[in-house]
């Protein structure tokens, strides 16, 4: 049971990190029709800036400043490069963000080196957020922070601490989700953004500066990625390959959730996070499945790599399988509204 709870929390926290990333991507896409290939690069920039700023100011200030800096860079990129390319259509826009991702990768390696940085979480976030305690009778208990040693050492008791960094990751994602949602639905600027989404010309005739709204949205999307970068870089690893590792998965999230749908991205990130985490725990293979169905296999077939392969071994490719299935059976994504 505590295995289920801890795995669920691990999956949810990873899923929420994916959501922090993909929310910005999907926001930009729904607004401007730009599929930002460099989005994961802004995530990486967030982590590296968080590390560098944090060394001077401490982590908490960096958590605020790094996303702002990344957002400013994103806005600058939109103003100076993307806007000029905009009039040539979507393919040049796609290509320029594609190019940007390579430029950012090389720049990061030039500035910070090719090896992983030691981005340690602050004192408060080191150690467990809470501990699940299963006592000898099997009943589950909960203790905030680290559980007292005598409880865990009691006969039959099992303690499962949940790291504070992951708790913080979940918390910041939820806070972010709520504030973005409030901003979009409850504020004036949110209304303008929503209107510019569907009727840019009308909004422009009403006297709003639509290009500036676009710049702000692009900047805000990048800032969200930057925030995810600071949190993710601290929890996992800050290294030059970090953009590449999430880069493809956030596209899966956005496509599965439905292009441009914030709610869809939320659902898809949670599904992918949880599925990937639980897949690691499943030791079923084609062979064991057939054996359970009563099919006897020849020794040669039992030794076959494909037959032996367990779900836990294929866990890393499951999201992509999911992507293919969604594209075949529901091309607009889970909660998407547009067709194709």
């Amino acid at each position, binding site marked *: 049971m505590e*295995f289920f709870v*801890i*795995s669920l929390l*691990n*999956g949810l926290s*990873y899923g929420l990190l994916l959501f922090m990333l993909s929310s910005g991507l999907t926001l930009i896409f729904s607004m401007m029709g730009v599929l930002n290939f460099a989005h994961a690069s802004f995530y990486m920039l967030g982590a590296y800036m968080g590390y560098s700023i944090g060394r001077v100011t401490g982590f908490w200030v960096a958590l605020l400043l790094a996303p702002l800096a990344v957002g400013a860079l994103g806005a600058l990129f939109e103003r100076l490069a993307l806007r000029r390319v905009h009039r040539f259509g979507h393919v040049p826009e796609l290509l320029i963000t594609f190019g940007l991702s390579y430029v950012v990768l090389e720049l990061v390696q030039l500035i910070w080196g*090719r*090896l*992983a940085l*030691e981005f340690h979480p602050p004192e408060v976030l080191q150690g*467990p957020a809470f*501990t699940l305690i299963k006592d000898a009778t099997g009943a589950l208990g909960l203790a905030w922070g680290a559980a007292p040693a005598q409880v*865990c050492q009691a006969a039959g008791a*099992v*303690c*499962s*601490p*949940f*790291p504070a*960094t*992951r708790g913080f990751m979940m918390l910041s994602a939820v806070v972010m989700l709520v504030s973005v949602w409030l901003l979009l639905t409850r504020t004036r600027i949110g209304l303008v953004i929503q209107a510019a989404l569907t009727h840019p010309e009308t909004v422009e005739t009403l006297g709003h500066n639509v290009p500036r709204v676009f710049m702000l949205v692009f900047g805000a999307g990048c800032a969200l990625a930057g925030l995810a970068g600071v949190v993710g870089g601290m929890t*996992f*690893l800050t*290294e*030059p*390959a*970090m953009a590449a*590792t999430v880069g493809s998965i956030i596209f899966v999230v956005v496509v599965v959730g439905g292009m441009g749908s914030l709610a869809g991205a939320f659902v898809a990130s949670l599904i992918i996070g949880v599925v*990937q*985490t*639980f897949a*690691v*725990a499943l*030791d079923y293979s084609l062979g064991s499945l057939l054996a359970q169905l009563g099919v006897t296999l020849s020794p040669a077939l039992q030794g076959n790599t494909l037959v032996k392969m367990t779900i*836990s*071994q294929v866990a*890393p490719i499951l999201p992509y399988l999911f992507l293919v299935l969604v594209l075949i059976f529901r091309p607009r994504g889970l909660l998407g509204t547009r067709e194709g």
Partner: protein
Amino acid sequence: MKFVWKSVVTASALLLGGAALAQQGEVVKIVRIDPLTGLMGPVGTNQDKSYKFFAEKFSGKGNPAGVTFEFRTIDNKLSPTESLNALKSALDSGVRYIAQGNGSSVTAALLDAVNKHNERNPGKEVLLLNDASVDPDFTNSKCSYWHFRFDADTSMKMEAITTFMKDKPDIKKVYLLNQNYSHGHQVAKYAKEGLAKKRPDVQVVGEDLHPLAQVRDFAPYIAKIKAAGADTVITGNWGSDLSLLVKAANEAGYEGKFFTYYAGVTGTPSALGQGSAGRVYQASYLHPNMGGQMQQWMNEFKAKYNDDFYTGSIPRIYAMLGAAMAQAKSTDPLKVAAALEGLKVTTYNGEIEMRRLDHQLQQPLYISVWQKTDAKHSYSPENTGMTFVQQVEYPNYVSSTPTSCQMKRPGK
């Protein structure tokens, strides 16, 4: 007439003398093909420094042949394909000694390429000096005359681990977590064989393979290990795959033992921290408190690079190459290979032998445990205040394992 005789004698004496010292002063170029970037970059970078450090120590008067060692690394990004390109460029620049260690997948590709090259280019043979790649296949089914392994292979280290486990009755449930490539598969295979032989009562409660140098988050694996009720984990993981695993284990409060091959490698000591004291074991041919010559080298290395030296096969490669070149009176790989076969030299922890049968170095192995430093064990990797303390030493004859190698020697 007398004069003629005299000059003939002098000339032949000169020739003989010259022949005896033909290799003296020659430059021996060694190129290592290994990662300097990516997740495993820190390991390759440390070993690059180690090779350079010992090239200085062993050059000139440092070796009986009087040759000068020149060393450089070509970054292969841990990719077999990139490694083959690197090999090509090394061969093109006239290098005849190739070193490699990280990633059996890379070793397999290089071994194949070196075999083909030597077959097609007689007179231009190259040797593959394997300093850390431990897949037993390279000295068994795939054994090659051109390959020499200076590390102890998986079967030898697992022999040491399982022999040690014989006296640890509290180990009851073992979990095998390894990287999904040849090395990881071999560790899992030999662990199961060794346990079945020496501790048939031990239950293997789970077995997992994860992608090499890809996983950033080991929390799901740790949750699984805990749920399986394992009190001990055996892992051949190295580099980030081990340090992130230990980090996740500490965060999730896993209290079991770890039997590792590479806990002393860059990044892992810091991840182990104080929380893992007494629970993490390492099977290796070197530990940080060897005393003697090795201790001096380690201290000097730390003073020079502010980094820890842990790849003990590197000084042995230089020592054996020097001895073999002196014996062969040449730096020609063909002659040096013949001299290396069966060669015995004494290095920092006694006599080691390059077994003629399969080119596997026979050497003592140690099981050491992670604990606080004290007066007797003062060297602390990565300044953690902790160190590895020797539990047992297995001399050559204990750690030795049989081979099935049918060595094909040139010209026979």
